[in-house]
């Protein structure tokens, strides 16, 4: 199997994997970064969202072989002490129920707010529409994104 060097959360890491292996499984199974979740495997639910060069990306659809010279950020690397404004807002609003989808929600929200500092309600709802929360904590996600935007 080929070897790849990736920049994950600011560190250079080396992994051995088949070229077609999705980044999701490299993160989870090879690098023990299990915060990025598996939900559907077809980019429909958003549980596996990470940042690639700051852009929210479904890691289940990105092959490990095309990630040369990119910066990958996962939920584990979003902030040093879990104090990114979005993480703080998630805590303040007590968003999670089961909590499984929330890393993906947070990664989508943080990439969105980096681009749009003062979003309207409609912009928030559009930005978060791609991430499914099966517990339907949507009211709180929406509120937390608003609160986070005020903290950023």
């Amino acid at each position, binding site marked *: 199997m080929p070897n790849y060097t990736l920049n994950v959360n600011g560190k250079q890491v080396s992994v051995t994997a088949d070229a077609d292996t999705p980044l999701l499984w490299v993160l989870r199974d090879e690098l023990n970064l299990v915060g*990025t979740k598996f939900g559907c495997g077809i980019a429909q*639910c958003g549980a596996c969202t990470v940042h690639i060069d700051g852009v929210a990306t479904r890691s289940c659809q990105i092959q490990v072989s095309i990630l040369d010279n990119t910066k990958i950020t996962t939920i*584990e690397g979003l902030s040093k002490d879990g104090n990114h404004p979005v993480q703080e807002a*998630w805590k303040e609003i007590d968003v999670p*129920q089961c909590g*499984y989808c929330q890393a993906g929600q947070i990664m989508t929200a943080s990439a969105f707010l980096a681009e749009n500092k003062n979003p309207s309600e409609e912009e928030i709802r559009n930005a978060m529409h791609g991430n499914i929360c099966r517990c*339907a904590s949507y009211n709180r996600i929406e509120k937390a994104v608003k609160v986070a935007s005020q903290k950023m």
Partner: protein
Amino acid sequence: MKLHKNDNFSRRNFLKTSVLASGGMLIGFNFLTACKPEAKMPVDIASLNFNDFNAFIKISDEGYVTIFSPNPEIGQGVKTSMPMIIAEELDVEWKTVTVAQGILDTKNYTRQVAGGSQSIRQGWDALRQTGATAKQMLVNAAAKKWNVDATTLKASKGIITNEKGEKLGYGAVVKEAALLEVPEKAQLKETKDFTIIGQDAINVDIDKIITGEPLFGLDYKTEGMLYASVLRPPAFGQKLDTYDDAKAKAVNGVSDVLKFGDKIAVLASSTWAAMKGKKALSATWKTDSKAESTEKHDKILNKILDGKDFDVRREDGNIKKAFSTADKVIERTYNSPFLPHNCMEPMNFYADVTADKIHLVGPIQTPQWTANRVAKLLERKVDEIHLEMTRMGGGFGRRLYGDFALEAAEISNLAKKPIKVVFSREDDMTAGTYRPAIKYRIKASLKDGKVTGYHLKEAAVNGNMYGLIPNFFPAGCIPNYKVETGNYKSNITTGAWRAPYTNFLAFAEQSFFDELATELNVDAIQLRLDLLQNVKNTDDKRIEYSGQRMEDTIKLVREKSNWGKNAEGTYQGFAAYYSHNTHVAEVAEIELKDGIPVIKKVTVAVDCGVVVNPTGAKNQVEGGVIDGIGHAMYADFSFKDGKPEYKNFDKYRLIRMGETPKVEVHFVQNNLSPTGLGEPGLPPAGGAVANAINAALGKRLYNQPFVNEIKKSSILG
């Protein structure tokens, strides 16, 4: 049930304390059987271990408290709310409390289940008594130290104070307290003195969730563990005939392919390799029993409704007479599809089966039942099984069934290695334990402006409404009343799905009553309130819901939703339902955008007794309402030739942010014992929305998902 129930509660039988070698005090208790007189605990304190207790409180020498939460956490918040109840009566500050998931051994442990919204309701008394008893022991130890009567001491926020104003922290007396007799009497707090119960407490796992720490079953791994992807029969009614694993074995990372029963497991060093290996398998299948389809189910259920083969579940008065003498008779039929659970965390389980023991780890709602089934399957003793529960990425009933844990155990037993079974989303959706398709036919007679007769027939696949459901509203409200159930046995696996049966029954019934209100020309809420007067002073013991509590709940939602005073261009719909011991009333408000209904807001009133953790409680109701709307509006599922026709979220539609209304939750204030919230918010939601859509479009909805009905509607062109 009143709040200060303190009768026949023998603490000696359920609680034991021990001094910890590492310092501090350990209190073991059995929270579910604690109130039952038959509960027996060992006399020998040295035998205090996880085999006899399912929950523990540890108080360190420094006064820090760790509570090992006994019940599975599927997102319903009990890992936060149950320890809050103990901490309240123990009288410590919530911020000094750490909550850990109790690790469980199957040997002799007692019932632990997450299901039916029962955790809080059943645990309330025992959890309070446990906290209060522990507090009393600490106070007694301080009294001994100061050589004063314990009644002269006060304890609050982890500090014991005597009449001179001297203070001792709990930590300073834990060693002595642990050696004292368990007292027979411990004073419970008055509701007004609660400082933790009734205050918002953030989910205890929040920091781990927002930083992505390992927490869920899918995150669990051990050194040398292999991932298993399983090929199962593609259709219900099929068995494995032949298979070829040469291509699968050639996949990088695949180490083994094992057949077990009618399934084939591909073992690999990564999840991806296991999944690839599974795709590379080729297999042929033979027919074992008849391949079924949704079309066929539809015909069969209609035939049941048209026929006479029913079990009578409740009958009052004489419906025949009521119908024959009525001014008008109305009959409607309501249809629902099968539904998969679609927990965001797909089914998975870890198993390490060795000659000495069986180690099982994963997300499971029924640890005890599952351990027993694994023992039976592998012909092992249940005390060789050590089962650990992880946090669960949703449950909704699916994780009651444990089929995935049995698969893991069977594969590990064959492979002689630690393995973890991981379902793909397609596996999860097609190898489900579905909410079965159900039809209701409801008929009512109207005479002199009143509902005089009510006849409900249920036709369901594989099961029928259980327990007290035939005695829910409107039983007791209408003099001539009959509920009957009919059934068809299918080879498709079915089971409990969040708020079983009532998740669809509530929609059918509450839509029907809305139609009756229109027919009688009375306000929809007023009709319910009028009917409830008939059940208020009932001496019928079978009636479980309370006419008074339902009335109070309905009146609260009427006030908070501005019922009947809504703005121009908005349309309201009402529904109320009692399920899982909790009364809920909802008003949905919609607007039309280009003729399409948009659900803007749902106002909810809930009577669940004392609200233990308001933020968690609201979260449950908000989620339950939106979940109920999502499935009523969008969720479709069908079978053809025994095969599920939906496999992933590209075709199967779950509700998303953009379709989500604002949910406003209000609680009825009272001091009654708390009841659960994991399910009760869901059942009324579909009915409230359907009734609002009728208010807007003049179109009654009889089939779920609504979106198909609305699309078909000529009103929308």
